[in-house]
C-alpha cells in the first residue's frame, strides 16, 4: 500500500499551488470571478505555459498525465485557490477529443478554449433523455435545441455538443461564432451560458457516443470531487483558525465543547470525502469507473453541504459577508453539488447495481 504522491505529481502540485498563491491570490480572484468574461485570459495562458493542460492528457497524445490521480492533483489545487478558470470543460473536452481521435494540440497549448454542452433544462444530469437533435442536410450536420448552464460557454471558441443523431447520441463540434451563446456569471463565481442551437452547422466527432460521453462525465465528476476536497480543506482550516482567535465571553469560541465536537465531526467527514475521491481516482479506466465516481460524488455532495453550513454557522455573522473569503468557498462548495449530478442523482447510479443483481 502506498498513499504517497508520485514525485512527478508532487512537482505538478507544487508548481500549480505556487503559481496560484503568487498570481491568483484573493484580490485577483475577487476581481476576476464575478465580471465578464468571468475568468482571466492572461492567467489561462499562464496555466497553459506551466503545462497544466498537459497533465490532463496521456503521454501518447502529447500530454504527460491523464490518469485519475493527475486529474485530482490539478483540481484539488484549483479548489484550494478557488480558481474560476474553466479547466473543467477543458478536461472533459480532452476526453472527448481523445475518444474521437481528434487533435488536442490546440487544447494543450491553451490556444483553443472548449466548452462541453450535454445537460438540458429537463435532463440536467447524465445522458438520458437529451432532446437536442442533429440532422443532416446536403452533407452538413445541423443542430437544434437548447443546452443549459454550460460551464465556460461564454469564453469558449469551440463547443462540443451531445445530440440525438438518429440511431443514438453523437458528439458534435460547433464553432462559437456560429451559435448564439447567452453568457452570464454564476453565484459562486465563474461563467456559463445558454447555448441556443437553431439549425447550427456542426461537425460530427463521435457517432454512437454514449460510452465516450459517460467517460467525459465521469472524469468531470472526479475533477469536481477533487476540487471539493481542496475547498473543504480550506474551509476547515479557516474555521479552525477562527475558532482559536475569535473571543466571546472572555474566551476563544473554540473552547466551547458545543463547537469542538462539531469540528471533530467535520474533520472526520472531510477525511472520508478525501478517501472516497482517492478510491474513485484509482478506479478510472477500470470497469468500476462510473460507479466509483458516483459513490465519490454522492459523498462529496453530502460533505460540502455539511461543511459549508457548519463553517458559516460557527463563524457567525462574519462568514455571511462578501468581504470574507470563506463565504465564497462556502458558495462554491454548495454549488459543486449542482454540477454533473447531485447527491441524489449519484445515489441512484450507485443503487442501480442492486437492481441489476
Amino acid at each position, binding site marked *: 500500500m502506498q498513499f504517497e504522491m508520485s514525485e512527478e505529481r508532487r512537482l505538478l502540485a507544487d508548481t500549480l499551488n505556487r503559481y496560484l498563491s503568487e498570481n491568483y491570490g484573493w484580490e485577483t480572484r475577487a476581481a476576476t470571478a464575478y465580471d465578464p468574461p468571468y475568468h482571466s485570459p492572461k492567467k489561462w495562458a499562464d496555466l497553459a505555459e506551466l503545462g497544466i493542460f498537459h497533465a490532463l492528457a496521456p503521454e501518447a497524445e502529447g500530454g504527460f498525465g491523464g490518469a485519475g490521480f493527475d486529474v485530482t492533483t490539478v483540481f484539488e489545487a484549483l479548489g484550494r485557490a478557488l480558481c474560476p478558470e474553466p479547466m473543467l470543460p477543458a478536461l472533459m473536452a480532452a476526453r472527448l477529443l481523445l475518444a474521437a481521435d481528434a487533435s488536442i494540440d490546440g487544447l494543450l497549448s491553451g490556444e483553443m478554449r472548449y466548452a462541453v454542452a450535454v445537460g438540458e*433544462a429537463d435532463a440536467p444530469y447524465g445522458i438520458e433523455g437529451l432532446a437536442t437533435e442533429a440532422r443532416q442536410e446536403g452533407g452538413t450536420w445541423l443542430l437544434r435545441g437548447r443546452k*443549459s448552464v454550460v460551464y465556460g460557454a461564454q469564453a469558449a471558441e469551440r463547443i462540443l455538443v451531445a445530440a440525438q443523431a438518429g440511431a443514438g447520441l453523437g458528439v458534435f463540434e460547433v464553432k462559437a461564432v456560429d451559435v448564439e451563446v447567452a453568457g452570464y456569471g454564476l453565484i459562486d463565481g465563474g461563467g456559463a451560458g445558454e447555448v441556443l442551437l437553431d439549425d447550427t452547422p456542426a461537425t460530427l466527432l463521435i457517432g454512437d457516443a454514449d460510452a465516450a460521453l459517460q467517460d467525459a462525465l465521469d472524469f468531470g465528476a472526479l475533477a469536481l470531487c477533487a476540487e471539493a476536497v481542496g475547498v473543504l480543506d480550506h474551509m476547515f482550516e479557516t474555521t479552525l483558525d477562527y475558532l482559536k482567535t475569535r473571543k466571546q465571553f472572555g474566551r476563544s469560541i473554540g473552547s466551547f465543547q458545543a463547537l469542538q465536537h462539531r469540528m471533530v465531526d467535520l474533520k472526520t467527514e472531510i477525511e472520508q470525502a478525501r478517501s472516497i475521491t482517492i478510491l474513485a481516482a484509482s478506479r478510472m479506466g477500470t470497469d468500476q469507473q462510473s460507479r466509483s465516481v458516483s459513490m465519490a460524488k454522492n459523498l462529496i455532495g453530502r460533505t460540502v453541504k455539511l461543511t459549508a453550513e457548519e463553517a458559516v454557522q460557527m463563524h457567525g455573522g462574519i462568514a455571511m459577508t462578501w468581504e470574507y473569503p470563506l463565504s465564497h468557498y462556502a458558495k462554491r462548495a454548495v454549488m459543486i453539488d449542482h454540477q454533473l449530478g447531485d447527491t*441524489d442523482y449519484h445515489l441512484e447510479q450507485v443503487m442501480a447495481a442492486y437492481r441489476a443483481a
Partner: protein
Amino acid sequence: MDLNFTPEEATFRDEVRAFLKAELPGELSDKVLSGHTLSKEDMERWHAILNGRGWLASTWPTEFGGTGWSPVEKHIFEEECCLAGAPRIVPFGLHMLGPVLIRFGSKAQKAHYLPRILDGSDWWCQGYSEPGAGSDLASLRTSAVRDGDHYVINGQKTWTTLGQHANRIFCLVRTSKEGKPQEGISFLLVDLDTPGIEMRPIRLLEGGYEVNEVFFTDVRVPVENLVGEENLGWTIAKFLLTHERTNIAGVGFSVQAFEQLKALATQQRRNGKRLIDNPLFAARLSEVEIDLEAMKITNLRMLADAQKNGRPGPESSMLKIKGTTIRQALNDLARRALGPAAAPFPSEALEGNLAIAPAGHTRNAARYFNNRKLSIFGGSNEIQRNILSKTMLEL
C-alpha cells in the same frame, strides 16, 4: 383536546384573509414570493395599508394605537400574511422599540415617538451588535459619556439591518465600567442625522445589501433620549429580546415555502420524469412536511401556554431552533430542485426571455445562502441551546 380555532378565532382568520385579498398589492406579493429585495417604498406602502386598517402595531395595546391582539390572534394574522406573500413588517420600530417605549419610556417619549412609528415618519434600526460583541452582547464597548445635558457617543455598531433606510437608531451603550458588564449599559435613542455618525454598507455573500456598519465619533445626544434609567439598559435589552421572539418559529414562512416547493417539484422534469415522482426527492420533501406539521402543533401548544401565562416561556428557544432549521431545509430543497439552473448569479437579465429557472425561482440559491443568517442572528442557535440547557433543563 381540540386543535381547532374557536369560532371567534376562525371569524378573525376569515376577516384577515378577506382583507389581504382585497388590500395586498400583487406587485408586493410577487416580489416577496420570488425572493426579490423590497424597496424602501414597498415596505412603507405595506405599512401604510396596515396602518389604515389599524393592524400595523400587532404587539401594542390599543391605547397606543395597537391591535391589542391575543397571542393566538397575532399568530393567525402573521400566518395569513406569510401565506399571502405579504411583506414582513419591519420589526425595529413596531416589534422592538414600540414595546420598549410602552414599558420603559417616559410620557414624553411615548407621545412623541409612538405615533411617528405608526405613520412612518420614523424608520428605526437596531444598534446592539458590535464587531467584538455578538453572542456576548454585554461586552459591548461603544461608550456614552455624560457632558452637561448631552451624552457623547464614541464607538462602532455593526450588522445594522436596513440602516440605509433608517433615520433613527436605538443603541445599547456603555455608560459605566463599574461592576458586572451588564450593569453599565444604557439604552439610547439616536437621530442618524446627528454630526459624527457614518454608515457604511456591508455586502452579503449572495450579493445583497441589507446590513451596515455604523461609526460614532463624538456624537452628541440629548440626555432626554435616554430610555429608562442610566445603567439599567440590560433589563430593556433582555425585555426586547423576548419580543424579538414573536413569530420566532416562522411557521407561516415555512408553510408558504413548502407549498411553493411542492409546486416547483411538480413542474421540474428530470430526464422525462417529474421531480416529485423521484423517490429520493419525494422522501426529502415528505420529511420536511412531517417536521412542519409537528412544528405547527408545537407552536400552537406554546402559544396556548403564552396565552395562559401572559408571556412566552424559555421553551420559545426551541421554536427558534426548530423553526429556523425547517426554513433552512426548505430553502435547501428549493435550491436542489433547480439542479444546474440554480447556479446563475441572480440578475434581472436572467428573468425575461432567457428564463433558466422557472419564473419566481431565479433566486432560490441566493435565498438559501442569505437565509443561513436565520440560525445566526436573534441569538444564534447555539446560544438558544445554552439558554435551554440552563433555564429549561437546569443543567
